[in-house]
């Protein structure tokens, strides 16, 4: 059975986030008062926090995962790491090196029913940016380069999970061949998983969540179908997590959300990172 490799410090997993930082990401996300860039950045920062939370034990953060973040479009025709002076980083190093920590107070209810105010700390590893065009092909090629190097030392690990968040079509060519090359990479436990999330500005169009065929996507929107073809099929452990969340999706479903608002973006990130963290040993 594939996608069942145990994830341990000897055989860590890899999450790689790709984020569109093109100018259009400065527009508001559907249903929100803040930009797509801000919401997507917050969502990735929050998801990394969640992964660290799951890896935190008494003695500290165990390196069950490594993390990479590639931004594309903050500079013209450029894709690059969003972590200062680093590419792929062990999760414990992420925990030790946020660029800043946001403190918020939260009320928790103790077991006697009394409310207690507590200070929670939320780390931030990168800030929102929305600047130039959408060099998605360059980002995919950089992701492939990083994953190729990672796989040399992790050939029997859980396969890398690559999650791409964008609001528009690539401006540097056809991304499908680069996506196919990325998806063809593998470990003994299965092929690399490539997930896509398309962010929407309009609440009038419903999100299409984990579609299983192209006909569920707008016929006139070439880009929506392009991202569908680029996305991996959901392996069984991910289908199980989606079913636990009450989502009715078919066995042929792809790791893809089109016209996502904030809820769908968070759902994709949660399901995309949840199944591997249930294999921790």
């Amino acid at each position, binding site marked *: 059975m594939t996608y069942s490799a145990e994830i*341990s*410090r*000897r055989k860590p997993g890899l999450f790689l986030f790709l984020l569109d930082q093109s100018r259009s990401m400065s527009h508001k996300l559907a249903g929100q008062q803040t930009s797509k860039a801000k919401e997507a950045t917050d969502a990735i920062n929050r998801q990394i926090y969640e992964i*660290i*939370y799951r890896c*935190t*034990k*008494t*003695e*500290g*953060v165990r390196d069950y995962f490594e993390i990479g973040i590639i931004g594309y479009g903050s500079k013209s025709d450029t894709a690059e790491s969003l972590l200062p002076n680093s590419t792929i980083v062990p999760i414990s190093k992420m*925990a030790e090196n946020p660029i800043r*920590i946001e403190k918020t107070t939260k009320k*928790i209810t*103790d*077991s*006697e029913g009394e409310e*207690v*105010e*507590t200070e*929670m*700390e939320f*780390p931030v590893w990168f800030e929102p940016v929305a600047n130039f065009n959408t060099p998605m092909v360059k980002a995919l090629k950089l992701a492939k380069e990083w994953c190729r190097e990672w796989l040399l030392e992790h050939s029997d690990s859980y396969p890398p999970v690559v999650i791409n968040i964008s609001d528009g079509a690539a401006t540097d060519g056809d991304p499908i061949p680069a996506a196919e090359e990325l998806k063809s990479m593998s470990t003994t436990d299965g092929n690399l998983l490539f997930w896509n999330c398309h962010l929407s500005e309009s609440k009038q169009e419903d999100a299409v969540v984990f579609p299983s065929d192209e006909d569920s996507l707008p016929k006139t929107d070439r880009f929506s179908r392009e991202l569908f073809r680029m996305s991996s099929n959901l392996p069984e452990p991910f289908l199980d997590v989606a079913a636990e969340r009450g989502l009715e999706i078919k066995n042929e479903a792809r790791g893809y959300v089109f016209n996502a608002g904030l809820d769908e973006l968070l759902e994709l990130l949660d399901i995309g990172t949840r199944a591997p963290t249930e294999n921790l*040993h």
Partner: protein
Amino acid sequence: MKIQDFHLSKLGNPAKEYEDSLSFDLKKGRFAIADGASGSTFSDIWAISLTETFVSSNVDLFRGKDDVVNRIVSASRDQWYDKVNWKALPWFLKNKSISGSYSTFLALQIKKTAGRLKFASLSIGDSCMFILDGDKIKESFPLKTPVEFGNTPDLIWSGQGSPVKKNLKVPEPEPKMFSGFISPGETVLLATDAAAKWIMEDPIYSMDLFRNDFLSLDSKIPKLINEKKIKNDDFTIALLEFTDP
């Protein structure tokens, strides 16, 4: 009364990450074993607090379960709360440790009554007690068969960590109770889940090792784990023998 015990950290983990706990006082006839849940932080401290608290307390299991869990949890929480340096935690431990710690727990009390050995035991979760007649399992408690072991055993919660106050009333899980007599020639074995499941699956070989080749456990248990005959987890057993019933 004589006790032999053996423990091993999950293979691949350093010894400091061992989260089971065994405490006993032969003179008082008090024994406790616990398995701290690895999903929560400071579970090793919580497991130690539970076993040490029970063994050093005068909680009497022979009087039934009324108020027993409350007294154990309340005193254990104090010990656990005092052992964590809440103010010095980095952000990731601070955020998570507010949720508290979890552990299984099995307590055993043995006393001599009218020339017979009487026992009373209390359990929450899947840490087990066996009564052995020679190399046969006469009784096991609370689980009887290997299929009963799962990924979500019942657990005792410490209650929330700081800044929630120390003297907190924590919800009590419903314990299972077991009592009876230990006959001459019988022995008692305590085991956390990985060991207990293996004992049920292979009683003849495990009993032979425990009774006749205890010193070989150091080499044989890792080998059995590598052969996937025992789950790779923290492993703890204690064998109680009664020389003069």
